[in-house]
Protein backbone atom coordinates (compact mmCIF):
# COMPACT_ATOMS: atom_id res chain seq x y z
CA UNK A 1 0.00 0.00 0.00
CA UNK A 2 2.84 2.42 0.85
CA UNK A 3 4.43 1.56 -2.52
CA UNK A 4 1.21 2.56 -4.20
CA UNK A 5 1.08 5.86 -2.29
CA UNK A 6 4.69 6.74 -3.17
CA UNK A 7 3.90 5.73 -6.72
CA UNK A 8 0.87 7.99 -6.98
CA UNK A 9 2.59 11.01 -5.42
CA UNK A 10 5.68 10.66 -7.67
CA UNK A 11 3.69 10.41 -10.92
CA UNK A 12 1.60 13.38 -9.84
CA UNK A 13 4.84 15.34 -9.32
CA UNK A 14 5.92 14.40 -12.84
CA UNK A 15 2.58 15.60 -14.19
CA UNK A 16 2.95 18.98 -12.44
CA UNK A 17 6.49 19.47 -13.77
CA UNK A 18 5.41 18.55 -17.30
CA UNK A 19 2.61 21.13 -17.13
CA UNK A 20 5.04 23.76 -15.82
CA UNK A 21 7.34 23.04 -18.77
CA UNK A 22 4.40 23.52 -21.14
CA UNK A 23 3.59 26.98 -19.78
CA UNK A 24 7.14 28.25 -19.27
CA UNK A 25 8.90 30.36 -21.89
CA UNK A 26 12.37 30.65 -20.36
CA UNK A 27 14.53 27.95 -21.90
CA UNK A 28 16.94 27.63 -18.95
CA UNK A 29 14.01 27.03 -16.60
CA UNK A 30 12.57 24.49 -19.05
CA UNK A 31 15.87 22.59 -19.24
CA UNK A 32 16.39 22.48 -15.48
CA UNK A 33 12.78 21.36 -15.00
CA UNK A 34 13.28 18.58 -17.52
CA UNK A 35 16.31 17.48 -15.46
CA UNK A 36 14.14 17.40 -12.34
CA UNK A 37 11.51 15.47 -14.28
CA UNK A 38 14.11 12.84 -15.21
CA UNK A 39 15.31 12.59 -11.61
CA UNK A 40 11.78 12.04 -10.31
CA UNK A 41 11.19 9.44 -12.97
CA UNK A 42 14.38 7.73 -11.74
CA UNK A 43 12.91 7.63 -8.21
CA UNK A 44 9.78 6.21 -9.80
CA UNK A 45 11.83 3.43 -11.43
CA UNK A 46 13.37 2.49 -8.06
CA UNK A 47 9.87 2.23 -6.68
CA UNK A 48 8.92 -0.07 -9.56
CA UNK A 49 11.94 -2.38 -8.87
CA UNK A 50 13.90 -1.25 -11.93
CA UNK A 51 17.12 -0.22 -10.14
CA UNK A 52 19.37 -0.52 -13.20
CA UNK A 53 17.03 1.65 -15.24
CA UNK A 54 16.87 4.13 -12.35
CA UNK A 55 20.57 4.81 -12.17
CA UNK A 56 20.91 4.92 -15.93
CA UNK A 57 18.09 7.46 -16.07
CA UNK A 58 19.61 9.51 -13.22
CA UNK A 59 23.06 9.53 -14.82
CA UNK A 60 22.13 9.79 -18.48
CA UNK A 61 18.68 11.37 -18.50
CA UNK A 62 18.97 13.80 -15.59
CA UNK A 63 22.74 14.36 -15.75
CA UNK A 64 24.22 14.01 -19.19
CA UNK A 65 21.33 15.23 -21.33
CA UNK A 66 20.79 18.28 -19.07
CA UNK A 67 24.49 19.09 -19.51
CA UNK A 68 24.13 18.69 -23.28
CA UNK A 69 21.16 21.09 -23.33
CA UNK A 70 22.96 23.64 -21.15
CA UNK A 71 26.09 23.41 -23.32
CA UNK A 72 24.01 24.01 -26.44
CA UNK A 73 22.33 27.01 -24.76
CA UNK A 74 25.67 28.85 -24.85
CA UNK A 75 24.96 29.56 -28.52
CA UNK A 76 21.19 29.91 -28.35
CA UNK A 77 18.80 32.67 -27.17
CA UNK A 78 17.50 32.15 -23.62
CA UNK A 79 13.86 33.08 -24.26
CA UNK A 80 11.17 31.54 -26.39
CA UNK A 81 9.26 34.08 -28.49
CA UNK A 82 5.82 33.68 -27.04
CA UNK A 83 3.39 35.41 -29.37
CA UNK A 84 2.70 32.74 -31.95
CA UNK A 85 2.37 29.24 -30.49
CA UNK A 86 -0.29 27.07 -32.11
CA UNK A 87 -2.89 25.96 -29.58
CA UNK A 88 -6.24 24.83 -30.98
CA UNK A 89 -5.16 22.22 -33.53
CA UNK A 90 -2.53 20.53 -31.29
CA UNK A 91 -5.06 20.47 -28.46
CA UNK A 92 -7.59 18.67 -30.65
CA UNK A 93 -4.97 16.17 -31.88
CA UNK A 94 -3.70 15.47 -28.34
CA UNK A 95 -7.19 15.15 -26.93
CA UNK A 96 -8.23 12.66 -29.64
CA UNK A 97 -5.05 10.57 -29.36
CA UNK A 98 -5.16 10.78 -25.57
CA UNK A 99 -8.73 9.57 -25.25
CA UNK A 100 -8.02 6.65 -27.59
CA UNK A 101 -4.98 5.68 -25.49
CA UNK A 102 -6.96 6.07 -22.23
CA UNK A 103 -9.56 3.70 -23.62
CA UNK A 104 -6.80 1.23 -24.53
CA UNK A 105 -4.87 1.34 -21.23
CA UNK A 106 -8.06 0.70 -19.24
CA UNK A 107 -7.90 -2.84 -20.65
CA UNK A 108 -4.30 -3.46 -19.51
CA UNK A 109 -3.82 -5.80 -16.56
CA UNK A 110 -3.75 -3.96 -13.22
CA UNK A 111 -0.38 -2.63 -11.99
CA UNK A 112 1.58 -5.47 -10.36
CA UNK A 113 -0.70 -8.28 -11.52
CA UNK A 114 1.52 -11.41 -11.50
CA UNK A 115 -0.67 -13.29 -14.00
CA UNK A 116 -0.22 -10.59 -16.66
CA UNK A 117 0.84 -11.79 -20.13
CA UNK A 118 4.08 -9.79 -19.83
CA UNK A 119 5.30 -12.18 -17.14
CA UNK A 120 4.44 -15.42 -18.97
CA UNK A 121 6.87 -15.86 -21.86
CA UNK A 122 10.68 -15.77 -21.55
CA UNK A 123 11.05 -13.76 -18.35
CA UNK A 124 10.42 -16.66 -15.91
CA UNK A 125 13.07 -18.68 -17.74
CA UNK A 126 15.59 -15.85 -17.43
CA UNK A 127 14.91 -15.62 -13.70
CA UNK A 128 15.04 -19.37 -13.10
CA UNK A 129 17.96 -20.43 -15.31
CA UNK A 130 20.30 -17.51 -15.88
CA UNK A 131 22.10 -17.76 -12.53
CA UNK A 132 22.93 -21.44 -12.95
CA UNK A 133 24.15 -20.92 -16.50
CA UNK A 134 26.09 -17.67 -16.23
CA UNK A 135 26.61 -17.04 -12.48
CA UNK A 136 25.75 -13.35 -12.67
CA UNK A 137 23.38 -12.38 -9.85
CA UNK A 138 21.91 -9.37 -11.67
CA UNK A 139 19.46 -10.80 -14.19
CA UNK A 140 19.20 -7.49 -16.06
CA UNK A 141 22.95 -7.57 -16.75
CA UNK A 142 22.75 -11.19 -17.88
CA UNK A 143 19.95 -10.51 -20.33
CA UNK A 144 21.55 -7.28 -21.59
CA UNK A 145 25.02 -8.69 -22.18
CA UNK A 146 24.30 -12.31 -22.97
CA UNK A 147 20.77 -13.25 -24.08
CA UNK A 148 20.31 -9.96 -25.94
CA UNK A 149 23.99 -9.29 -26.65
CA UNK A 150 23.42 -8.51 -30.32
CA UNK A 151 20.81 -5.96 -29.32
CA UNK A 152 23.39 -4.20 -27.15
CA UNK A 153 25.92 -4.36 -29.99
CA UNK A 154 23.33 -2.63 -32.20
CA UNK A 155 22.84 -0.02 -29.50
CA UNK A 156 26.54 0.80 -29.39
CA UNK A 157 26.51 1.12 -33.19
CA UNK A 158 23.61 3.58 -32.91
CA UNK A 159 25.46 5.63 -30.27
CA UNK A 160 28.64 5.60 -32.39
CA UNK A 161 26.69 6.74 -35.46
CA UNK A 162 25.03 9.52 -33.45
CA UNK A 163 28.42 10.71 -32.16
CA UNK A 164 29.79 10.68 -35.69
CA UNK A 165 26.72 12.59 -36.88
CA UNK A 166 27.11 15.26 -34.19
CA UNK A 167 30.77 15.74 -35.11
CA UNK A 168 30.02 15.98 -38.83
CA UNK A 169 27.11 18.39 -38.33
CA UNK A 170 29.07 20.68 -36.03
CA UNK A 171 32.35 20.73 -37.98
CA UNK A 172 31.25 20.22 -41.61
CA UNK A 173 31.43 23.28 -43.83
CA UNK A 174 29.10 22.40 -46.72
CA UNK A 175 26.10 24.64 -47.29
CA UNK A 176 26.81 27.01 -44.47
CA UNK A 177 28.60 29.71 -46.47
CA UNK A 178 25.90 29.72 -49.13
CA UNK A 179 23.08 30.03 -46.65
CA UNK A 180 24.85 32.69 -44.62
CA UNK A 181 25.32 34.67 -47.80
CA UNK A 182 21.64 34.37 -48.75
CA UNK A 183 20.72 35.25 -45.20
CA UNK A 184 22.85 38.37 -45.22
CA UNK A 185 21.44 39.42 -48.60
CA UNK A 186 17.91 39.18 -47.20
CA UNK A 187 18.86 41.10 -44.09
CA UNK A 188 20.46 43.78 -46.29
CA UNK A 189 17.22 44.04 -48.23
CA UNK A 190 15.21 44.40 -45.04
CA UNK A 191 17.40 47.24 -43.98
Amino acid at each position, binding site marked *: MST*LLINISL*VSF*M*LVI*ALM*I*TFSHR*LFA*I*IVMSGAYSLISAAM*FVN*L*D*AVDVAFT*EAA*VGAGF*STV*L*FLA*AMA*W*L*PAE*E*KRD*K*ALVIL*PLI*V*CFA*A*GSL*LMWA*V*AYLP*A*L*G*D*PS*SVVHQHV*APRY*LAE*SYDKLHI*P*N*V*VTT*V*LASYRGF*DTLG*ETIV*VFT*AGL*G*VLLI*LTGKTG*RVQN*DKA*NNDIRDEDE
Partner: protein
Amino acid sequence: MADLLLSHWNYFIVVLLMMIGLFIVISSMNLVKKLVGLSIFQTSVFLLYISLGKIESGTAPIIMKSGHDGHGNMDILYSNPLPHVLILTAIVVGVATTALGLALVLRIKASFNSIEEDEILNVKRAINSRSKSS
Protein backbone atom coordinates in the same frame (compact mmCIF):
# COMPACT_ATOMS: atom_id res chain seq x y z
CA MET B 1 -14.54 2.96 -11.46
CA ALA B 2 -12.49 4.17 -8.46
CA ASP B 3 -10.90 0.72 -8.38
CA LEU B 4 -9.92 0.97 -12.00
CA LEU B 5 -8.50 4.45 -11.42
CA LEU B 6 -6.38 3.23 -8.51
CA SER B 7 -5.09 0.03 -10.11
CA HIS B 8 -4.37 1.71 -13.46
CA TRP B 9 -3.23 5.11 -12.09
CA ASN B 10 0.27 4.78 -13.59
CA TYR B 11 -1.03 4.00 -17.04
CA PHE B 12 -3.47 6.93 -17.06
CA ILE B 13 -0.74 9.33 -15.93
CA VAL B 14 1.59 7.89 -18.57
CA VAL B 15 -0.98 8.71 -21.25
CA LEU B 16 -1.38 12.24 -19.87
CA LEU B 17 2.40 12.78 -19.83
CA MET B 18 2.65 11.40 -23.35
CA MET B 19 0.01 13.83 -24.57
CA ILE B 20 1.69 16.78 -22.80
CA GLY B 21 4.95 15.84 -24.55
CA LEU B 22 3.16 15.55 -27.89
CA PHE B 23 1.44 18.89 -27.31
CA ILE B 24 4.78 20.62 -26.62
CA VAL B 25 6.30 19.06 -29.75
CA ILE B 26 3.43 20.19 -32.00
CA SER B 27 2.50 23.54 -30.50
CA SER B 28 5.85 25.09 -29.58
CA MET B 29 7.71 26.97 -32.31
CA ASN B 30 10.99 26.88 -30.37
CA LEU B 31 13.24 23.99 -31.42
CA VAL B 32 14.86 23.50 -27.98
CA LYS B 33 11.45 23.32 -26.30
CA LYS B 34 10.39 20.80 -28.93
CA LEU B 35 13.37 18.60 -27.98
CA VAL B 36 12.42 18.84 -24.28
CA GLY B 37 8.86 17.81 -25.24
CA LEU B 38 10.28 14.86 -27.12
CA SER B 39 12.22 13.73 -24.04
CA ILE B 40 9.07 14.03 -21.88
CA PHE B 41 7.28 11.80 -24.39
CA GLN B 42 10.18 9.34 -24.26
CA THR B 43 10.28 9.16 -20.47
CA SER B 44 6.55 8.49 -20.35
CA VAL B 45 7.02 5.50 -22.66
CA PHE B 46 9.81 4.23 -20.38
CA LEU B 47 7.44 4.53 -17.45
CA LEU B 48 4.78 2.53 -19.30
CA TYR B 49 7.20 -0.35 -19.93
CA ILE B 50 8.58 -0.39 -16.39
CA SER B 51 5.06 -0.28 -14.93
CA LEU B 52 4.15 -3.33 -17.02
CA GLY B 53 7.17 -5.21 -15.62
CA LYS B 54 6.24 -4.62 -11.98
CA ILE B 55 4.96 -7.53 -9.91
CA GLU B 56 3.05 -6.84 -6.70
CA SER B 57 5.30 -7.40 -3.63
CA GLY B 58 8.14 -8.35 -5.98
CA THR B 59 11.71 -7.11 -5.65
CA ALA B 60 14.49 -5.99 -8.01
CA PRO B 61 15.61 -8.85 -10.30
CA ILE B 62 18.96 -9.52 -8.60
CA ILE B 63 19.20 -13.15 -7.55
CA MET B 64 19.73 -13.57 -3.81
CA LYS B 65 21.65 -16.75 -3.00
CA SER B 66 19.68 -17.42 0.18
CA GLY B 67 16.48 -17.60 -1.77
CA HIS B 68 17.94 -19.80 -4.46
CA ASP B 69 18.45 -23.49 -3.90
CA GLY B 70 20.40 -24.09 -7.10
CA HIS B 71 17.59 -25.93 -8.87
CA GLY B 72 15.72 -22.95 -10.21
CA ASN B 73 13.21 -22.94 -7.36
CA MET B 74 12.63 -19.53 -5.88
CA ASP B 75 10.80 -18.41 -2.82
CA ILE B 76 11.50 -14.75 -3.63
CA LEU B 77 9.32 -13.01 -6.16
CA TYR B 78 11.29 -10.92 -8.67
CA SER B 79 9.91 -8.28 -11.02
CA ASN B 80 10.19 -8.92 -14.74
CA PRO B 81 13.75 -8.09 -15.96
CA LEU B 82 12.93 -8.00 -19.67
CA PRO B 83 11.27 -4.52 -19.84
CA HIS B 84 14.19 -3.16 -17.78
CA VAL B 85 16.68 -4.39 -20.37
CA LEU B 86 14.69 -2.93 -23.27
CA ILE B 87 14.40 0.45 -21.53
CA LEU B 88 18.11 0.56 -20.63
CA THR B 89 18.84 0.36 -24.35
CA ALA B 90 16.15 2.96 -25.10
CA ILE B 91 17.52 5.51 -22.58
CA VAL B 92 20.98 5.44 -24.13
CA VAL B 93 19.60 5.65 -27.67
CA GLY B 94 17.33 8.48 -26.50
CA VAL B 95 20.23 10.59 -25.29
CA ALA B 96 22.06 9.91 -28.56
CA THR B 97 19.10 11.24 -30.56
CA THR B 98 18.86 14.27 -28.25
CA ALA B 99 22.52 15.06 -28.88
CA LEU B 100 22.00 14.76 -32.64
CA GLY B 101 18.92 16.99 -32.43
CA LEU B 102 20.82 19.65 -30.47
CA ALA B 103 23.65 19.57 -33.01
CA LEU B 104 21.07 20.16 -35.76
CA VAL B 105 19.56 23.05 -33.77
CA LEU B 106 23.00 24.67 -33.39
CA ARG B 107 23.58 24.27 -37.11
CA ILE B 108 20.17 25.78 -37.92
CA LYS B 109 20.98 28.70 -35.63
CA ALA B 110 24.28 29.23 -37.47
CA SER B 111 22.61 29.19 -40.89
CA PHE B 112 19.30 30.96 -40.23
CA ASN B 113 20.15 32.97 -37.10
CA SER B 114 16.96 31.78 -35.38
CA ILE B 115 15.60 28.73 -33.56
CA GLU B 116 11.95 29.65 -34.04
CA GLU B 117 10.25 27.47 -36.63
CA ASP B 118 8.18 30.18 -38.33
CA GLU B 119 11.13 32.55 -38.72
CA ILE B 120 13.21 29.77 -40.26
CA LEU B 121 10.41 28.99 -42.71
CA ASN B 122 10.16 32.69 -43.67
CA VAL B 123 13.90 32.88 -44.40
CA LYS B 124 13.67 29.66 -46.43
CA ARG B 125 10.76 31.02 -48.48
CA ALA B 126 12.66 34.23 -49.12
CA ILE B 127 15.72 32.26 -50.30
CA ASN B 128 13.57 30.10 -52.60
CA SER B 129 11.78 33.05 -54.17
CA ARG B 130 15.11 34.83 -54.74
CA SER B 131 16.69 31.81 -56.44
CA LYS B 132 13.61 31.50 -58.68
CA SER B 133 13.60 35.16 -59.72
CA SER B 134 17.35 35.35 -60.46
